[in-house]
């Protein structure tokens, strides 16, 4: 179930963060989103929180939860699958 979400999540990341010159296929499902990997920061994190709520109806309540959820695209998909209404 969570595997099926991965392409959708990657496109959401590209759209929400307006990442130019990168396709969904180029995002590594297991790479860290923050620091190394995509190099996202706390401003990006809030943008992703809002996008996840809008797209999937899933809430990330705080940064501590966000640290785990945004560990990778695969971690995001597992969280969404678990909390989706």
């Amino acid at each position, binding site marked *: 179930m969570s595997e099926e979400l991965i392409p959708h999540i990657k496109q959401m990341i590209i759209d929400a*963060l307006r990442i130019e010159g990168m396709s969904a296929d180029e995002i590594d499902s297991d790479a860290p989103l923050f620091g190394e990997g995509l190099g996202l920061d*706390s*401003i*990006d994190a809030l943008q992703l*929180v809002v996008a996840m709520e809008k797209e999937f109806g899933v809430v990330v309540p*705080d*940064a501590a939860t966000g640290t785990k959820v945004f560990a990778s695209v695969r971690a995001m998909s597992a969280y969404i699958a678990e909390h989706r209404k």
Partner: protein
Amino acid sequence: MTLWLFPGQPLTPEPAVPDDDDFYAINELCRERCGFDLSHHLPLSGHNLSNHTCLQIYGVAMSLYRARRLRGTGITPDLIAEHSLGIYAALAAAGCLEEGAVLELVCGIGSAMATAFTGRQYALGCPIGLPVGPVESAARNNGVFVANYNTSRHFLLAGETSGIEAALGECLAAGAFSASHFPCEAPLHTPLLAELSTELTAIVAGYRFREPLVPLLEHINQTRLTSAAIPAFLVDELLQPVWWEKSWKVLRAKGFSRCSEVGSGQALTKFNRWIDSESTD
């Protein structure tokens, strides 16, 4: 229309330095006018520059460098805007002051602030995710100030470290998504800087500013700066908050075909993305 945006102070230097003639030229200006080595991010021997002053010089220098690179590809601005420390490189881009003078000026102001507030503990706090009301309330309750209104959910607080820590605790309790803080040498963009305004005015008075060749929009009232208004603005802006969300909305309403963030990092681009996303919801 091409818009250039000059960002505020970066939190840290970039991990790598460029390797080209423009960078070497800016580095040489940093060495001559500030006693600062941009390549190694260190003061030269015999120059007593604080860490924060070094970071301020670095931020301005990287903006000057990126402006040179853009001009080198044939891109020139039709309109310039700035956030906080970005005013210095913006002045150079608008033709109001030479690059070397801009670096010397930011070095002088940074050093004055570092010296004046020695022995006191100040910090910047960054609550993310709360609307303005609870953030202003937390600041007021703890004797600190909102220094940057960046977006509807991104703010910067400034003040004494203990007050910043308490205000951020209140923000988290009120539901902020995250809250982080960083030490700083002076309470930037707050009325606490007023005790230094005479000295800052004297530093700025040592420079003659030319009329901007390109319209330059300032971050307090979103008006076009004139040469006559620049000296007072340079002091006043240190005592007042940065109104970036308002600035971006004014810029967006003017319309532009190309927008470049001219400096280290992408903070303004990310703030603008957030502001734009709210206006299209």
